[in-house]
């Protein structure tokens, strides 16, 4: 039964060892980090199997009964998120090691493991204050990763990232204070019991809490009008870190799904009208911002970052419907967009480490121009939502789920027009990077400001280990498309379970002695 907490405890114990015992030897740190991540994947698979039968497993920390102690809750949704995190982490970690990113600054692996601990903790907890704690863990660890290896632009962007998210944390505290003051509890299941009992005309405080929490989660999910931090952060983060961050925005989306469904969701008289009504327009604008950003980008990394913003918009448009079919679509899109964004960043890293800048201007083609072009093409197709990869199916699922009158016009227009701008943006970027470059016949390398060693590195072809992570990511997207039927069936069960508030509450609050 202790399986549930392993995704937190495992990295939490491994990270200090890596950071403090193995800090003088990168190889040792790499071995430990990879071993830990492999274990995490194994544990995550185990948890997914445990959760697959639809049972909601509860882990009561300190053996205190809920709602007085903290509980971890494992259901299909949290198992899915942990598994996604673990698989993504594995891909990113191999890339970071193969490209040598991890050795370009201090404490990469320790921070990486702490980051995994924070993300997994956020997905598993059944307590909103504990969620805050893990938001802090993943924020500070991600800040460390974000400014890994330094540089003026990166540190500057990192400051914006951390300030913006600390502001979010402050608001989180205000929201939690309000919530506690109006309900007297912090346990999600207990909140789900108490809040529906508040009459609709006396719910002002709870409504404030619900709204503030949504803004807090929106900061993480990069939703308009609090998405401003994301493009600069992702664009300036080390590419493997940006790839790992693909799951960070999903933490925000997950929190909205969990809290605003189970606690404030449909059927709660005081708050049910809030989330959907405000989330929907915000998500629509987010799609537009993402799409315009992709088309207007002057550099490759911001372009990808804006495509992430757009994908979050699409995801949250589906979330905003707060229904089982729409949530199924949202979850499918969530898994898809996580891998799609990660792939893009990893591929961009392979290309950009062989170019002198990520400005979208033609330069002498890098080695393996064809290979990189093919990889970029595939990942861009996925992100823009073109077949045959999972993006197209995800988009169809979302569109299909958003048929309600009043929604359909805005949602469909935004998603379809957004797709078009995204496609055009990617096409322009790709044709400049990979096609137009081939027209340059100058053999003058723009290596004036590079040392010979750097020039050598820039001309070195990518090794199999460097390309493999991106390829595995693309394979995930292909698999997600081919096995869309079974995956969607599982996700449908997942969202049904998520909307089964009574089931969740009973599992957590019953004095059940399943141990």
């Amino acid at each position, binding site marked *: 039964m202790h399986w549930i907490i392993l995704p937190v*405890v495992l990295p939490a114990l491994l990270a200090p060892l890596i950071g403090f015992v193995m800090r003088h030897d990168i190889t040792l740190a790499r071995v430990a980090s990879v071993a830990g991540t492999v274990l995490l994947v194994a544990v995550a698979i185990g948890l997914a199997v445990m959760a697959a039968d639809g049972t909601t497993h509860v882990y009561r920390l300190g053996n205190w009964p809920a709602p007085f102690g*903290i509980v971890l809750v494992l259901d299909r949704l949290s198992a899915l998120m942990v598994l996604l995190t673990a698989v993504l982490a594995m891909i990113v970690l191999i890339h970071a090691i193969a490209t040598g990113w991890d050795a370009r600054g*201090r404490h990469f692996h320790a921070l990486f493991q702490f980051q995994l601990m924070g993300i997994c*903790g956020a997905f598993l907890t059944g307590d909103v204050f504990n969620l805050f704690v893990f938001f802090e863990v993943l924020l500070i660890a991600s800040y*460390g990763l974000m400014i890994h290896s330094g*540089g003026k632009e990166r540190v500057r962007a990192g400051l914006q990232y951390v300030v913006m998210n600390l502001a979010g944390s402050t608001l989180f505290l205000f929201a939690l204070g309000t919530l506690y003051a109006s309900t007297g509890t912090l346990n999600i299941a207990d909140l789900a019991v108490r809040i529906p009992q508040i009459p609709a005309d006396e719910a002002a*405080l709870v409504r404030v809490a*619900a709204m503030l929490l949504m803004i807090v989660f929106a900061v993480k999910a990069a939703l308009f009008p609090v998405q401003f931090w994301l493009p600069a952060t992702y664009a300036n983060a080390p590419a493997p870190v940006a790839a790992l961050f693909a799951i960070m925005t999903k933490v925000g989306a997950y929190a909205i799904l969990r809290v605003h469904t189970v606690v404030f969701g449909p059927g709660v008289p005081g708050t049910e009208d809030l989330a959907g009504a405000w989330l929907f327009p915000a998500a629509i604008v987010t799609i537009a911002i993402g799409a315009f950003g992709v088309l207007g980008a002057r550099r490759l990394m911001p372009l990808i970052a804006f495509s992430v913003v757009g994908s979050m918009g699409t995801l949250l448009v589906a979330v905003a419907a707060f229904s089982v079919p729409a949530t199924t679509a949202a979850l499918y899109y969530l898994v898809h967009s996580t891998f799609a964004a990660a792939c893009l960043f990893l591929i961009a890293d392979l290309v950009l480490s062989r170019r002198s800048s990520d400005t979208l201007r033609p330069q002498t083609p890098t080695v393996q121009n064809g290979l990189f072009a093919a990889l970029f093409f595939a990942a861009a197709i996925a992100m823009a939502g073109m077949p045959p990869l999972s993006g197209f199916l995800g988009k169809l699922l979302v569109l299909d789920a958003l048929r309600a009158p009043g929604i359909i016009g805005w949602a469909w227009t935004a998603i379809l027009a957004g797709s078009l701008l995204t496609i055009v943006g990617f096409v322009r970027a790709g044709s400049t990077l990979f096609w137009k470059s081939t027209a340059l016949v100058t053999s003058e390398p723009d290596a004036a400001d590079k040392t010979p060693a750097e020039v050598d590195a820039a001309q070195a072809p990518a090794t199999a280990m460097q390309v493999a992570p991106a390829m595995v990511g693309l394979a995930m997207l292909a698999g997600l498309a081919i096995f869309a039927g079974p995956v969607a069936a599982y996700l449908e069960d997942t969202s049904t379970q998520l909307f089964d508030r009574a089931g969740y509450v009973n599992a957590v609050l019953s004095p059940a002695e399943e141990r």
Partner: protein
Amino acid sequence: MDDGGPLLFLIALAPFIGALLPGLMIRAGRTVCAISTAVPTVIALTMLMVLAPAVLRGEVIQAEVDWLPQLGLSASFFLDGLGLLFASMILGVGLLITLYARFYLSGEDPMGQFYTYLLLFQGAMLGIVISDNILLLLVFWELTSLSSFLLIGYWKHLPEGRQGARMALAVTGAGGLAMIGGMLILGNIAGSYNLTDILQAGDAIRSSEWYLPALILILLGAFTKSAQFPFHFWLPHAMAAPTPVSAYLHSATMVKAGVFLMARMWPVLSGTDAWFYIVATTGLVTMVLGALIALFKDDLKALLAFSTVSHLGLLTMLLGFGTQAAAVAAVFHIINHLTFKAALFMTAGIVDHETHTRDIKRLGGLRHLMPITFLIGTVAALSMAGIPLFNGFLSKEMMLEEASHTDWFSSPYAVPVMATIGALLSVAYSFRFVSHVFLGPVRDDYPHKPHDPPFGMWAAPALLVVLVIVIGVAPFLAEGIVTAAASAVTGADLHPHLKIWHGVTPALWMSVIAVVGGAVLLALHGPLDKIWAAAPRPEAKAIFDRLMAAIVALSRGITEIGHNGAISRYLAIFTAASVGLGWVAYASSGLSAPTRGLLPVEPVIAVGWIMLVVATVSVVVMHHHRFRALVLLGIIGLSISAGFAYLSAPDLALTQISVETVTIMLLLLALHFMPKLTPRESPTGLKFRDAVIALGAGGGVGALAYAFMMRDIETISDYHVANSYEGGGGTNVVNVILVDFRGYDTFGEIIVLGIAGLVIYALMHALLDGPAARRLKNTDFSQDRSRDRHPLMMVVVTRVLMPIALVVGLYIFLRGHNEPGGGFVAGLVVAIALLMQYMASGFAWTQERKRIEYHTMIGLGVVIAGLTGVGSWLSGSPFLTSAYTYVHLPPIEEFELATAMLFDLGVFLTVLGAVMLMLYSLSRIARFAGATVNEGPMDYDPGLKDEQEAER
């Protein structure tokens, strides 16, 4: 019919699987590569021919596998007459193109890539025509856009190729996206995405209120793909592709996908006024306009491209008429257009290949030099012109016949006249193709001396013109397939008879007018061309480029205005949004009645409050002076600590005061490296905005706090108070909450502290490697330095305080479980004691006297806390389950040992380690910046100084 089902899957998959071959086989040579491309095509074609007899008998072959049932998407295929016609065209022409391209591509072109793209395209196109599920059809539809993008941009070093590819993808991609919407609506009305079901639901669809949106969206897809006005402009630019691609995609297959779709949906969507006026009118306009532009194009491929646009318009118009006879004519013309147009494209490719130019003005007289090519090109062009005994004549007659009795907005003349003009222009440009390229005198200024190409290159077009003649002379041979396809289109059982002579009909007269008029027009081409060249007309590419540039500029504007990197603006928006939305949420409901009254305000409290307010306002006013601001922050922190103490929260007060102290000390040290003043950045207007927002936020938080302090609520902390001693073994409920009830939170928080230490350390290293380091080195910190960095008094006092502080720390640590205190505060107290030593005697001196690495201390702390939690697994309890016992050792009183204390030790170590690591990082920066290191406890040795003075 399930017999052929599995074969259908194989047909659909063959090109995709086969696409793996050419990329590999190119290593065995170009011919092997071409053959390996032909293999999957031949396999698919053979299987198609196996199924053909049944289809021609009127059977429909189906096959289905579930893909995404939640969406209604299944991998289902069906083959009826229409599908058979298109599939044969795709595969048949695909084979010819494979052969042609083998000879057309030069040695420098990556042939493996070309054939791979070609097969991918072939598979996608094949998928469109045999899909039995409209969502699956969409998948293939978008795949054709993507694969054609790759094919058009095949010569990636040429700007025309890249631009043409982008334009094609933008236009057809946009249409495809619109079509997604249309198909989803259609499926929703019909209740199924299966084409066979939808085809049965025509009446329901046409009477639905969603019919018009669905129709428009689907037609957008079809019109963009089939290059209908006003989306026709991408097709000529796609001609930058290698000629085999133009012949295959842009005449025979892809551009017909839109026509195919309209034919496929004909039973469902046609028969309404909306259909007639949108589709037929668009087709008619496109036909005339395309033909007109074609006449004045000098580039051979551009001429053919616009003629293709024109013929696609013709097909669209026929489908738009909505009559069965028109549908038959459309199907027949699809076949005929395919044969002559593909042959013409290949001819143009041969001319280009041999003479190195496609400019009609530089050609002429080629009939003597390239007799075979001349023959092929002429036959095909005459067919295109609609001259009897060639197949183009037959279907054009049928078209004119249909046009002659179609009313348009109650005008009986509009359509026939326009159709005749279209035919006339068509004759003119066809004749021009022959006369200006092949006829006339032989020139001596060709860029390259032309001659007929090798057999492999002219074999494919030759085969096609043979078909042109065979069908033209014996049209009944095509009756079988036309019947099957037309029946499939209309959903009716048709038996058309194709024949050459229909008697003297209006159509015949229209034809005669067209041919004669066309010849006259060609004769006048010279002067007309000058007028055309002088006439102003919109240039589609320029408009498209300007539009694209405008959208990009708009996107940049939107993006860069918003994301300008100004953190103050981001925060302002965030805060304003929080206040605004919080207010909206609050105002839309009410509150329960307050249950508490206000407490009386005592004078001391009032004074404290005023101090707090004054200090806060002063920070705002004086924040440009960093040092003053820091001092004021200290006042605020102390006031808050006092407030906690007053409100009976001694633990909080203790923690707050030690946190304040440590923070202020570290900030003081950090301040040394920063400018003394912060830059003035905000103009007054911004300051005003920020002030309004800040006041709103402050007021909001105050109101919120007021609202909940006025109300009693039953909370879970009652349970904590009740169970603290019994269950947690401690009487200080705050500490028990921290290390037991919510020890998991504390575990997370100490990790945050530990990570913060790590991050600061890592950041310090990164900074010292970067440009910031150079600035540090060059900054002179000396002028405002105290002459006595390590004053004697301070050194002495801190030494004396050290053991006292350590004992206090230990005391606070030990009493924590029962009285205010605990590992967190203890860690801070000890850290303060050590910080004092550093401040007094400098880092290096103190550093030499420490025993444990700070990194290790943090690591140890986290691991101890973690292992304490894991330890409870041994007793089968969950993580962090506490256990305690009472121990009696004789000299001292009975005391308690709790696992919580071990956990608290972890907290203690982490806190201490993190603070120290931060200090270490600061001192590293100081030393980097040139601070000198003293060996002794003070800068000078008082004793030594006296001796020196004595010596003097």
